């Protein structure tokens, strides 16, 4: 091959590879992005049922109930303005408590129940998952909550 033809071949190959990689990444991106919403957005109907979402807020006090024979838990997530019921089957994270911040990941059912397959909780007394704090803040339309230190446990 002549040097010029070779250089052209390299450039064409590189462009093709780049195109393929971009297509791959964008496609993966489009099908795997998960939006974060607040209970208010759900109740007001901004969200179509059946899509995968994350919902954040506080676990309403006194709302936690447990199926006696199994592992299914029901609780209500509120952003202090609106609230939605959540169903989750499985072991709750260490720091899941009523009145504290929580983020649930799962699917909204047509009847308005949120079926979670993953529940994240805060990891110390002063801390709220930022997503949960954000939902509460939006509802209160005040700006500063939480801060402090520490980490988010994923389940």
């Amino acid at each position, binding site marked *: *091959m002549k*040097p010029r033809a*070779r250089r052209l*071949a*390299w450039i064409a*190959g*590189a462009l093709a*590879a780049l195109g393929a*990689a971009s297509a*791959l*990444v964008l*496609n*993966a*991106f489009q*099908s*795997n*992005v*998960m*939006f*974060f919403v607040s209970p208010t957005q759900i109740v007001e109907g901004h969200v179509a049922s059946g899509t995968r979402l*994350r919902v954040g807020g506080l676990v309403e006090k006194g709302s936690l109930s*447990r199926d*006696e*024979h*199994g*592992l299914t838990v029901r609780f209500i997530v509120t952003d202090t303005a609106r609230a939605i019921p959540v169903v989750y*089957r*499985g*072991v*709750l994270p*260490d*720091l899941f408590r009523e009145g504290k911040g929580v983020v649930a990941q799962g699917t909204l059912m047509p009847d308005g129940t949120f079926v979670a397959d993953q529940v994240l909780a805060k*990891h*110390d*007394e002063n801390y709220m*998952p*930022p*997503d949960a704090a*954000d939902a509460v803040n939006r509802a209160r339309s005040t700006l500063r909550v939480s*801060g402090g*230190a*520490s*980490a*988010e*446990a*994923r*389940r």
Partner: protein
Amino acid sequence: MIPEIGHFALIVALALALVNGVLPIVGAARGWTHWMRVAWPVARAQFVVVAIAFGCLAASFLGNDFSVLYVASHSNSMLPPVYRVTAVWGGHEGSLLLWTLLLTLWMAAVSVLSRQLPRAMVARVLGVMSWIAAGFLLFMLFTSNPFARLLPPAVDGRDLNPLLQDPGMVSHPPILYMGYVGFAVAFAFAIAALLSGELNAAWARWSRPWTTAAWIFLTLGIMLGSGWAYYELGWGGWWFWDPVENASFMPWLAGTALIHSLAVTEKRGAFRSWTVLLAICTFSLSLLGTFLVRSGVITSVHSFAADPARGIFILAFLSIVAGGALLLFAWRAPKIGLGGGFDPVSRESLLLSNNVLLMVAAASVLLGTLYPLFLDVLGLGKISIGPPYFDSIFVPLMTPAVFLMGIGPIARWKSARLPELAVRLRWAGAASVVAALALPWVVGGWKPLVGLGILLAAWCVSASAVALWERIAQQQGPLAARFSRLPSAFCGMLLAHVGIGVFIVGVTFVKGYETERDVRLEPGESLTEGGYAFRFTGTREIDGPNYRAARATVEVSRDGRTVAVLHPEKRLFIVQQTPMTEAAIDRGVFRDLYVAMGEQVGAGNAWTMRVHIKPFVNWIWAGCLLMALGGALAACDRRYRLVPRKRRAAVPAPVSVSAPASVSLTVPRSPRGAAPAPGTATREAGTGSEAGEAGR
């Protein structure tokens, strides 16, 4: 008094770093030997002074000095002494101090172990590293002083986050940081090359062992972190595509590309600009990782401290380092040149393809990590990008990368022929296909993705075996002697590639056949999962040093025979009133049995429990260990140690380096290939010395 000594030591370290950032670099530019000479002693002094500061902080922790704010917020008088020491890096300020300590440790190592390098080169390397150290010291002194006092002193501390009270905390952060910071050496070498305008095979040979050493530490650090998350977080995962994990994985991908690109630069003089660019990228990604973890812009188990002001400082520092380096690159890269040419099918092009694949992988991880941040900052909504995104990218990217990785080591430099490669690798290919068809079926039923994984893993191993066999067959004499004559760099490469195969086996089988069950168990009840019966016999209260715990007993049996007795715990840490799950694992070569406690439910002593069976999970870390071991073998190759400057000047570098079998067999395919860039080789050998340096 001790904290003040530490604080003062940091100030002294800053002064030393500023001196060392100016004198040697100016001296190297002007050829003033006495200015360059400053670099060695000052580099070591920087290490000593920062070590004093670190010692002061550790002493404050051990002595429970709660008048120091950082100690009061990360320790407690009930904390066991070993965790008081590890608590030094349990938060933001101490982590930075550890970062700086390790940076100065690498500087001291460079100053001791680089006798055979030209003086101007080492002076520049140490100068550049001093600038980085100065940046971090400024950051610490102005925004995050670990020695800040708390008035009035606290009666007792807030305690270390219970997640961090674990043996993993002893090894994971320092080793991971050694890796992050180690790439500063590669970066400094690249900047030194840009400053001097000279980048040749000798330069690549000097910077290779340092880069490989950093890569080894990063590999081990990631492995330890993954293993720690697996047993500590209690839900049996070993990698979560968490932003902080991604922050360590991006420099790993770029660093892996860099060590391969350096190999080409050393052996063939090619890829010069690309190598320099990779070195800049790798260290910038390390800094970005520090920024992501330490600024609090992302939240995960790792971001203990959230403070936007610090984030802005790190972001500014990052832009100066990366931006400045890239500007310098744009200005000086033409001077360095591209190096020798090669055919579309050659070892160079295979390595280049894999470099590109690794960098595309790193870029897609970067996109997945940063895109949610950008959206959030711009107020366009909050999203999260989870494991499915990364999984769907890594399978198609790594499949060709692993395939090419098998071919690379046996392909000829400069020009190779596909039919010949196919013939040489036909048995490896056949063995891989057989393994892909048979093995998944034996372990747990054939699935397409498992088949693909095993195909790739078997390909790594069998293609490496072919490469080894061809090397051995070329040699004369008894078999043992042939083995002992193999260069350790070659063995290291094969070992690391086999490690990739072992790693893929682990990932494939875990992903393909792992099971997870959440159940509610009363004492005496049992659960059958994957042929194992898990019988919960009850719990017992126990007292730890700073926690109380309920400890369960779970007997695991198979076909009526007891396999293991597991004791998962639910701990309540007294100071922070934080519950923590301590999983119990029965480890094995072919499977792990994993039990974690949920919570007590209902009347009686019923608990929710999570039971996992993880086939081949330990192969994941075994694979990483093999990669690190391979790296260590490669970094110990004798040619890095035993090349006195005089001999190097006499013998053209590339020839002396690649003397073993591979070159003697190479039949050049084009007239240009007949003399492997003789002009550059001899010139490079000369310019490596200080005479060439000063003559510039």
